[in-house]
C-alpha cells in the first residue's frame, strides 16, 4: 500500500472502520448470554489482554482439532464461555468485536505458529494458493506473488 494511502488508513479521525472499533469496545464490556458475562469479565482490559492475539490467528484450536480464525475464536468464546448464541459472520456485532480485538495488535507483525499441528493446514493453503482455477485459469500466486505492486490495467 502506498505511503499516502497507508497514512489515510492510519488516521483514526477519518477512517470509518473506527466506528466499528468503538462499537466493539462497547460490546466487549456488555454482558451477554446465559452466563451473563462480558468479554471483559474474563479478559479484563483488551488493550493489554488482546495485544498480539489477532497477530497469531488463525491459531490451532485443540478442541476443534483445526485452526480457527479470529471470528471463529470469538464465537467459540461466546458459545462455550458466555453461553450465548454465536454471532453471524459479517454481522455488525461480529465485525465490531473482531475490529476491536484486531486493533489491539496494531503495528505487530503476523505471528502464526508454524508447528506440526498447523503444518498440514498451511501446506493445503499453500497448495490452493498456487493452484490454477476458475474461468481465467489463474492461481492466486500469479498476481499476488509474481505481480505485487503493479496495477491490473
Amino acid at each position, binding site marked *: 500500500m502506498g505511503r499516502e494511502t497507508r497514512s489515510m488508513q492510519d488516521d*483514526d*479521525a*477519518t477512517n*470509518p472502520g*473506527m*466506528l*466499528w472499533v*468503538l*462499537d466493539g469496545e*462497547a460490546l466487549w464490556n456488555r454482558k451477554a448470554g446465559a452466563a451473563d458475562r462480558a468479554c471483559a469479565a474474563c479478559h479484563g482490559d483488551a488493550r493489554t489482554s488482546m495485544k498480539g492475539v489477532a497477530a497469531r490467528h488463525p491459531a490451532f484450536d485443540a478442541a476443534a482439532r483445526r485452526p480457527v480464525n479470529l471470528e471463529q475464536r470469538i464465537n467459540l468464546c461466546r458459545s462455550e464461555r458466555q453461553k450465548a448464541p454465536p454471532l453471524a459472520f459479517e454481522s455488525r456485532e461480529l465485525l465490531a468485536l473482531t475490529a476491536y480485538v484486531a486493533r489491539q495488535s496494531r503495528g505487530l507483525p503476523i505471528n502464526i505458529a508454524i508447528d506440526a499441528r498447523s503444518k498440514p493446514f498451511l501446506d493445503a493453503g499453500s497448495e490452493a494458493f498456487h493452484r490454477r482455477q476458475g474461468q481465467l485459469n489463474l492461481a492466486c500466486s500469479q498476481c499476488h506473488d509474481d505481480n505485487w505492486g503493479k496495477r491490473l490495467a
Partner: protein
Amino acid sequence: MARAIINVPAQAKRGEIIEIKTLAAHPMETGFRRTQLGELIPRDIIRRFVCTYNGAEVFRVDLHPAVAANPLIAFATVATESGTIAFQWAGDNGYAVTETASIRVE
C-alpha cells in the same frame, strides 16, 4: 453504539484557523438500490448537518443521496472564544444525533 466520531482540537490560539472533522455512522441508503428479489430499498439518508459554536451557527451542510455511507464532513473555522462546539445531524426516519466538544481558546 458509536453514533459519530468528532475531532476538534482541544485548544487553539485566538483567531487561529482550526480544522474540525466529523464522521457520522449512517448507511445513507440512496433509495435507488434494490434487494435480490427486486424490491426497492427505501431512502434513508442524513439530510442536514449543522455546527454551532457557542450557540452561533458556523457551518451547515445539506446532504443528498449521492453522499456515501458514514459521511465524513471536515471543515475549518476560526477559533474565536473558549466554549462548546455542537454538532447536529438530522435525517430520514427521525434520525437526530447531537454531539458536543469543548475548546479552550487563549
